[in-house]
């Protein structure tokens, strides 16, 4: 029996269990891993049977808020991504040096629960609650386990986020109030709001409020100022969470609220937004090129790629929308892999600087080739997952050949900065050997293997996953009345 409420509740119960367990650091990590894999197994076991499953309880009658969760294809895709990435984020933890491991794992699992809630919420107020609540575990992860400047980075991160979505409550309430216009009580139900939101006053202001919140969290250029510090200062597993899942929350918001409630406005504003997104692709790319630190380099490359996804969403054609949704999944997988191997490298070097060492391939061959694989996937070489997604985005933009050419150039840019990293760090004349440079073991390869398999699978045979997202794309296309290419 599939229960969405059980799926939602399980991570929280796991988090409480993690707080109570008294185990050695190693066993604690194992326990957390097992607990985080269970939702993934449940999702895989149920696969498409999960769609349509619903939970609806009256939660706060005085405020009209329902505890309403529903899974549709779009939700399910993001649920899969979340359930997949959380175990990798736990695997990226170095259990022997982690302080207060109980709290750390509990926070990650709590975040998983909040994300499950967020990706399935059908009540706009509930959606907002999860949207804001997911910041807290991330804030604590950065501030308690981050790098030297973690205090500043964490505060900057959360204040940016809260500032971005501060007015969202006003937007939610105005939608509620205006939904009363047709007679009867107000509602926070997204399906009902989708019917009334087309004809409300001040719609552009309300949509602007939501869009700002989504743009800050994703982040869309130029709302990214929090990103470099937060990604850099967070511990590796926190960076994986930020880059692979948190950015997808913003993308999901645009798909869910933007496309379903304000399709006309989104269409009207799309040229401007597309401009921002393309600027972001290049801005992130150029800055990644100039970094002398590989963690920052990957952070900026993530900014660039996320803006590529947004370009797909704002291109307003069915193909690029499908490409964008697919890319959201692909980017999550690839960036998790990149940060995972970058974390292993950092562990061995003791720093993330690009300047200090060279020619590591001689000492760390396996890590080198694994990194190269994720780099190749990240620059969208044919045969990898990103190639399919980015190609679809470009294909959807075909009516503007100049834009296609421009975005095509950005792919070359990503090759330049990524290979610059590889060349600086792994190739070239080797630096003198240090005893901490021990190559990764079979265990590490085994950890990365699922990501490698997924990257190749989606790259070589994308039909199943495209079929999987097809209903979601068609639903959104119908909402927004997009041109079908």
């Amino acid at each position, binding site marked *: 029996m599939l229960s969405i409420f059980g799926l939602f509740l399980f991570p929280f119960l796991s988090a409480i269990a993690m707080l109570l367990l008294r185990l050695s650091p190693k066993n604690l990590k194992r326990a957390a891993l097992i607990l985080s894999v269970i939702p993934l197994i449940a999702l895989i076991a149920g696969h498409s049977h999960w769609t349509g499953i619903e939970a609806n309880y*009256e*939660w*706060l*009658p*005085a*405020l009209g808020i329902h505890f309403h969760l529903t899974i549709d294809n779009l939700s399910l895709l993001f649920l899969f991504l979340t359930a997949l990435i959380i175990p990798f984020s736990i695997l990226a933890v170095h259990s022997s040096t982690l302080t*207060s491991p109980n709290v750390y794992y509990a926070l990650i699992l709590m975040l998983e629960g*909040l994300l499950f809630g967020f990706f399935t919420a059908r009540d706009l*107020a509930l959606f*907002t*609650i*999860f949207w*804001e*609540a997911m*910041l*807290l575990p991330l*804030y*604590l992860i950065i*501030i*308690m386990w981050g790098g030297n400047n973690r*205090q500043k980075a*964490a*505060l900057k991160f*959360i*204040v940016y986020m*809260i*500032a971005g979505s*501060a*007015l969202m*409550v*006003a937007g939610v*309430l*105005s939608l*509620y*109030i205006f939904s009363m216009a047709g007679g009867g009580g107000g509602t926070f139900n997204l399906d009902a709001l989708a019917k009334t939101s087309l004809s409300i006053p001040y719609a552009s202001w309300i949509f602007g409020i939501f869009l700002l919140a989504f743009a800050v969290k994703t982040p869309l250029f130029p709302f990214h100022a929090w990103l470099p510090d937060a990604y850099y200062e967070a511990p590796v597993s926190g960076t994986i969470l930020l880059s692979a899942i948190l950015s997808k929350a913003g993308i999901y918001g645009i798909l869910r609220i933007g496309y379903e409630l304000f399709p006309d406005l989104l269409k009207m504003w799309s040229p401007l937004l597309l401009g921002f997104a393309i600027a972001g692709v290049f801005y992130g790319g150029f800055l990644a090129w100039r970094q002398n630190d590989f963690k920052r380099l990957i952070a900026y490359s993530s900014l660039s790629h996320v803006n590529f996804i947004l370009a797909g969403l704002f291109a307003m054609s069915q193909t690029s929308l499908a490409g964008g949704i697919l890319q959201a999944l692909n980017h999550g997988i690839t960036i998790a892999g990149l940060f995972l191997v970058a974390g292993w490298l950092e562990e061995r070097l003791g720093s993330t600087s690009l300047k200090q060492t060279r020619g590591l391939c001689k000492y760390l061959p396996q890590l080198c080739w694994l990194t190269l694989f994720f780099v190749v996937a990240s620059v969208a070489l044919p045969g990898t997952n990103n190639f399919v997604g980015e190609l679809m985005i470009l294909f959807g933009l075909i009516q503007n050949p100049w834009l296609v050419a421009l975005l095509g150039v950005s792919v070359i840019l990503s090759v330049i900065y990524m290979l610059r990293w590889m060349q600086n760090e792994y190739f070239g004349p080797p630096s003198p050997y240090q005893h901490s440079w021990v190559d990764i073991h079979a265990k590490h390869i085994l950890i990365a293997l699922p990501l490698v398999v997924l990257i190749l699978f989606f790259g070589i045979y994308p039909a199943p996953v495209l079929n999987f997202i097809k209903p979601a794309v068609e639903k959104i296309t119908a909402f927004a009345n997009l041109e079908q290419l």
Partner: protein
Amino acid sequence: MSIANVATTLNLTDVAALSPFLILLIGALVVLLIETFAENVASKLSFPLSALILIIALVAAAYAPASDNLLLTPWLSFDPLARLFTIFLLAIGLASALLASAFFQHFKATQGEYYFLLLSAVFGLLLIGSSADFLTLFLGLEMLSIALYVLCGYMKRWNISHEASMKYFLMGALAAAFLLYGIALIYGAIGTTRFDGLLSGYRAMHSTQQSVLFLGGIALVTLGLAFKAAIVPFHVWAPDVYDGAPTPVTAFMAVGTKVGAFAAFVRVFLVALPQFNPIWSEVIALLAIPTLIYANYVALRQVQLRRFFAYSGISHAGFLLIPLAAGTSDALPALMFYLTIYAFATLGSFAVLAFLDDRPAGVMLNDLHGLFKRSPMLAGLFSLCLLTLAGIPPTVGFFAKFFLFKVAFQAGYYWLVIIGLLTSILAAYYYLRIVGIMLSPVSKEVAPLRHYWPAAVVGVISCVAIIILSCYPAPFMAFLTGE
């Protein structure tokens, strides 16, 4: 109504209805007597006795019947709201007594008088919460204030307390004068000081002179109450007084006085004169805007935590003005919900401060460095309270703010909502900065934390209440909305 029907005696039901008041009054006097005649006994007995008195009064309040005796009802109301306020205020009194007992474990001073004054102040608060007439209201406010003037300067050898106490007394006396003058004007306009006669008196006015008198009176009453609630621009006393008073007194002022002042606002303006005049609502909305902006801005720079909580309290007063301005049927439950959450979170915070409070100057922001390492429990509790005050989901503080904003939206105060939301960005910054400091490494050698069980009790109860309300606020909300 003929004279024959008017009761001239109190029967048992009436005494039972009055029992919380009587228990508190007699108890307070007993505490004072013990202090006068047996000082040695008082130093041991005052706290347990006061706590016991408050607990008995709480139980009595929960079961007290309503009285319809005409000797009482013109002065005191026995409606569900009065019962709610009574229980709420007695609980705050109990928490303050617990915090005070923790304080006296470290700082030596006579205790009997302290608890007598505390109980008197709580008695004043109860009168405000149950008042049915301006005179009861004024009596309650004065009993509260006079006790507090003394309590502020209770630590006679603390220099900072002298200034605080003097300042509070002078400003408080002025505010009381305004309030009394306002009451006199209202009486002049409509010939009664009873709350249930206000609305009909206001509606029945036909001459301009009368309405000038009445509205002038209302303006002065509002001013007097705004002073007590520390609303910008009548807040100037609050930071200095909070800063200079001993920490448990600050806690009592931050919660008790705040609740008392808003209870008075509720009694006069939400219950007796709901939406009587749109201009009054506009004025309250206009007061809320500078209160929210100023308090949140100045709180950014505070390093002394008592002073910090003064500004935090002012900013929450700004939020509490929003339902007063709206004045709709949902305004009262929204206000009560917010007040309750504010009280829990603030008392929880002061419970944490009680552990760190070791000198007259109070706890500084720097003292919190590395609190998470020193005591994860205290730091966790403090963080929870601060997040609740900041209104960050999933804490119940978010629902409290959401409720307020919903009420304001329905009443059409869009700008107030937007300003409230924007200032909450500042609030998030200054509350989370404290959380960040607690999580940072220890900066200097620190003495191990002392253990005060009374403060721990307050902390644990606040923490449990916040967690339960965060997960499932529906029953309490339904209780307040009367469903």
